[in-house]
């Protein structure tokens, strides 16, 4: 049997060598994470994507990863180290790796680079990909407005980048679609990951009247605080139900697996091309954790909105929408332009915060 396999393998090699485009027998896919894979949030989900690649492509792929790589000078060294060590495709999975990724990509034209949540593609070997997380945030906003008795939700934000602002706005729009007077308090933690500080932020928000907590930071600490204080919360990036069995309403789960498999396969087959992907519920990149701890009518409403977004019938950013300063942004029925969303640096009306500049 082993021999037969060997012959088949040899034949395979001969075949692939003769094909016109540069298909490969084995590809090395490398991943750089900003947090630790045990954060049970952002980096954990990316690593789940890596494992999906291993499972789908078996021995045709070899993967490697570096975790807790700070954004900045260290990132460039880490990416370059991967590029030199024979990686064929490198996924850099945080916004702050943007310039470093493009810089290294210039030096290694044969290596493919995939940068998550960024917008710079300075070389033909750099792709960017992102998910339409705001679709999930809109659904969460609707649930929050139904479930809150104080009419105030607390939002723990990380850094004032378009990605995060987009989420805050979508949450607000969702909530306002249910309760036009709904208020959202925002606290900037200025970190992606600091359990203590995230917990403190959650406590501060609850102390100031918020009875729904949602976060755009990576640890499970806010969920735990919400559970201790007896308010409800949304999980972020992965299902955090273990930390709040009676607390989590739902969670946005980032499912990177399908995209990672597709892209690594493309390198394997020699069909990789530069892309700028922005996929959401429809493509299965944004998945909602089970709707829990809510009455059936709220659940039905959430499911209906989710179905409408998935089918493409509805877009969370549909007019009429006013900006925070009261000026008109989207007219009745108008859908926001992707370019504007990806560079979003303003709040919509109803956000109770001043956007840090």
């Amino acid at each position, binding site marked *: 049997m082993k021999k037969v396999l060997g012959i088949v393998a040899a034949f395979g090699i001969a075949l692939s060598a003769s094909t016109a485009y540069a298909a490969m027998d084995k590809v090395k896919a490398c991943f750089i994470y900003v*947090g630790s894979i045990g954060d049970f949030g952002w980096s954990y989900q990316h690593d789940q994507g890596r494992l999906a690649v291993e499972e789908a492509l078996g021995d045709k792929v070899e993967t490697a990863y570096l975790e807790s790589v700070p954004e900045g000078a260290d990132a460039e060294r880490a990416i370059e180290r991967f590029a030199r060590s024979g990686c064929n495709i490198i996924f850099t999975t945080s916004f702050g790796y943007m310039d470093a990724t493009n810089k290294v990509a210039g030096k290694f034209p044969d290596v493919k680079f995939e940068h998550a949540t960024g917008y710079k593609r300075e070389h033909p070997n750099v792709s960017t990909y992102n998910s339409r997380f705001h679709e999930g945030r809109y659904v969460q906003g609707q649930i929050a407005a139904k479930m809150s008795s104080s009419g105030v939700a607390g939002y723990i934000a990380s850094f004032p980048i378009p990605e995060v602002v987009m989420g805050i706005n979508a949450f607000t729009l969702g909530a306002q679609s249910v309760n036009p007077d709904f208020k959202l308090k925002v606290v900037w933690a200025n970190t992606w990951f600091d*359990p203590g500080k995230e917990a403190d932020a959650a*406590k501060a928000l609850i102390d100031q009247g918020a009875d729904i907590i949602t976060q755009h930071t990576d640890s499970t600490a806010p969920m735990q605080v919400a559970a201790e204080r007896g308010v409800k919360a949304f999980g972020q990036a992965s299902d955090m139900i273990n930390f709040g069995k009676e607390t989590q309403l739902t969670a946005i789960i980032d499912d990177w697996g399908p995209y990672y498999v597709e892209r690594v396969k493309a390198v394997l087959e020699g069909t990789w091309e530069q892309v700028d992907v922005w996929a959401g519920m429809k493509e299965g990149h944004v998945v909602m954790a089970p709707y829990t701890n809510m009455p059936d009518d709220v659940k039905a409403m959430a499911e209906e909105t989710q179905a409408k977004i998935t089918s493409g019938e509805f877009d969370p950013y549909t007019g009429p929408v006013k900006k925070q300063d009261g000026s008109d942004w989207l007219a009745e029925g108008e859908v926001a332009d992707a370019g504007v969303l990806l560079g979003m640096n303003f709040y919509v009306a109803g956000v109770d915060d001043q956007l840090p500049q």
Partner: protein
Amino acid sequence: MGMLEAILLTVFTAATPLLIAAMGELVAERSGVLNLGVEGMMIMGAIAGFAFAQMSGNPYIGALGGMAVGALFSLLFAFLALTLVTNQVATGLALTILGLGLSGLWGEAFVGIPGVKLQPVVIPLLSDIPLIGRLFFAQDALFYVSIALVFAVSWFLFKTKAGLTLRSVGDNHHSAHALGINVMRVRYLAVMFGGACAGLAGSHLSLVYTTQWIENMSAGRGWIALALVVFASWRPWRILFGAYLFGAITIMQLHIQALNLGDVEFLPGPIYGILSLLKSIPAQFLSSLPYLATIVVLVLISRNRRLTLINTPAMLGQGFVPDR
């Protein structure tokens, strides 16, 4: 009053680990040893505290375990920096890096498990006093320990013979040696005390602050504790003040962000003015205040020669090799 109490409670929780870790480092530095490995010992204490609490089901065993592992871990530093006289700065940094890595490895099995919380110890009667009772007499055991530590360390350093011996080793190890003091023994004990405190502070993070284990969860608190010791110019009571100041800054900036000025218009003019002024300061700036404050203090004490001479351990960071 509910709001004020809630804010202060959060401040107390934020300040406690800083205070415990800084008290330990103070003793080590007073004996002339600069151990920059606080962050590493703290994170080892965090995982040890979590692991022991999880395995025994008792958070107090967890806290003791955190202390023990912190002390053991600091022994590694002591052996390298004191016995082998390696560079203390480099060895301390290495200890931090090792601690972060090792704790991640040890903690892999504990990720994603809700932990065992150290419940508050409510002191009867006293805890019924409005505001103060809830703040001072219904806290977790580690809070009481942290306050007791300030009294104990202060008394030990300045009122006991052993404390005098420790300070003399920190000020001039050659003279101390000539007087027959066992410099190595004093320093080993001081470093281990520092390690035990850092470990205990770490277990506060995983047993009280956020009841869970996540890799890297100390998130720089060890460095703040180090900065505190300098900020306090090596005086115990100033560390107490500094820890609460740093804790208050961290918490207040979060509250100020969440505050809607429209909701507090009823407050008297000056208070409203201060709040709106604070609200206009960028959050990033407020987050960096503890470090800025430390730099300012460093500049101030380095200008005042006399103050520096009184408080800074003269042998800080210098290895001791007995000449005979």
